């Protein structure tokens, strides 16, 4: 386990931000979800040692979060949520500065700064003053400074906030590439569920300072009964009629998706057979999984 927390509590005065958080986070990319005020940012800050938990224990890569926050900060790269940079510097000086602050020798930090800036796609802009950077470039710069000291874990707080579609895709591709390396792990906090869906293998959902769900994404989304979603082209009336006749429960959503609950007596092939007999094409056919949004709504328990 890379990150382990046991019964961690933290309060801002009377407000309990973390209320007995116990979790394990393993290999790869892990998503951190929760409504506003659920304690996501607080959790990241506790993990980095910015905040001392009131009670509870925790380890990040074997470093105690109470006693060895410097040890943690050496192996963790942190990408904060807000826009942040230091005015008057160019990207190389900026990135190298944080490499040096992490304990890299000056020359090495400089060399590494060029490498990570190329990696995040700022190679050509690296001598420009940071104040002239666009939102997407600032986001990459934040990623570069988080990577400069070659951390073992990356904490990314809302990495795609305020980006346009291209910017989002590019950052997500970078994150996916980083987390595909075996020896670097990623913890992403985000409000955009599709981002988590695209990049993460496991998931922690926080709600009101408590862990509402955690585990592998695939396992959390698994549906036990045979529920299929399909889209069809053609006159679907007779097809649906035939399905209902075969004891299927059929639902149609407003965006044209047909949901079928298959009884045990029927298999997938029967669906295709009925479709062929009714003269329609099946254009989309998947075993239904709980959408991340539904999973989120269910665990957080609203609506």
């Amino acid at each position, binding site marked *: 386990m890379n990150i382990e927390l046991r019964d961690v509590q933290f309060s801002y005065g009377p407000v309990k931000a973390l209320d007995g958080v116990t979790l394990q986070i393993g290999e790869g990319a892990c998503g951190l979800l929760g409504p506003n005020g659920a304690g996501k940012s607080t959790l990241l800050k506790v993990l980095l040692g910015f905040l001392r938990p009131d009670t509870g224990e925790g380890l990040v890569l074997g470093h105690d979060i109470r006693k060895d926050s410097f040890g943690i900060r050496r192996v*963790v790269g942190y990408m*904060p949520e*807000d826009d*942040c*940079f230091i005015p008057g510097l160019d990207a190389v000086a900026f990135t190298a500065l944080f490499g040096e602050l992490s304990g890299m020798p000056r020359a090495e930090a400089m060399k590494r700064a060029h490498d990570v800036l190329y990696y995040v796609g700022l190679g050509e802009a690296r001598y420009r003053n940071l104040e002239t950077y666009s939102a997407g470039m600032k986001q990459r710069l934040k990623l570069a400074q*988080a990577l400069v000291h070659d951390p073992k874990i990356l904490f990314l707080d809302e990495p795609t906030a305020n980006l346009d579609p291209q910017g989002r895709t590019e950052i997500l591709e970078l994150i996916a590439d980083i987390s595909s390396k075996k020896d670097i792990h990623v913890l992403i906090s985000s409000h955009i569920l599709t981002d988590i869906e695209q990049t993460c293998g496991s998931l922690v959902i926080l709600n009101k300072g408590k862990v509402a769900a955690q585990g592998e994404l695939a396992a959390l989304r698994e549906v036990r009964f045979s529920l299929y979603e399909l889209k069809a082209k053609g006159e679907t009336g007779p097809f649906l009629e035939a399905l209902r006749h075969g004891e299927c429960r059929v639902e149609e959503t407003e965006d044209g998706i047909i949901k079928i609950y298959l009884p045990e007596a029927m298999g997938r092939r029967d669906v295709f057979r009925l479709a062929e007999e009714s003269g329609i094409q099946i254009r989309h056919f998947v075993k239904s999984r709980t959408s991340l949004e539904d999973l989120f709504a269910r665990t957080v328990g609203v609506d």
Partner: protein
Amino acid sequence: MAIAERGYTHWPGSLEGGRRPWRVLEDFQEMLKGADKFLHINPAYFQAYYGSSFLIFMMLMIMVGSGSGLIADDLRHNSLPLYFSRPLRKRDYVGGKFGALAFFLLLLTLVPGILFILLKLLFAGSFAFLADYPWLPFSFIGWSVFISSFFSLYTLLLSSLGRNRRYAAILMVAAYFLSDVFFGIFYGIFHEPAFCLISVQMNLRQLSAAFLGAKPQFDVPWIYSFLVLSAVMVAAVLVLRRKIRVAEVIR
């Protein structure tokens, strides 16, 4: 036995080849003598330099120009989390900022003082000066360090109050001069020298006089000025401890 010939005689030596430009500096010794008269480097000279409004004005310029944004810019651009996600303590951060500013202020205070002493020793060609005033190096070094630390902390304090470096700069100048203006008003009305304690500038002058063995302008014990200025420094440290934090309290 010979009789020396009278009249013109020859020089029996031979000329050497090289040129000797340094002999042109023949006048240098003359200049040194003049400078020694001109540069009356003695305690009064130090008192005049360290008590001059010009020096304080130059220090203010440095503080306004390069000090006002030290922390305000970091707050404005949210860069504190970046610093503190590295193995860095609060005191490392504040210490770094303090050191950068104090370095430049010491260039204006400590370095000239050392130069004066060196020049004096050079011109006088003896250590008699130091023997006469053995306390002088200690007092001007002490004073340089004190005033530089005071101004550095003063700058960091005001720079950490907001996210805008201009406000910090305005605050720095305003607090400095307004306190002086108030002193002027009260002193004009009540003629009570103790009011000098409300003016930053007057406190500094009182204390510089005390450090350098001059007679203070006002008949107020220097220890009070020292306490006032130290209180500002302590307040600065306390405020910085509160203000420099990564985790904002979320409502």
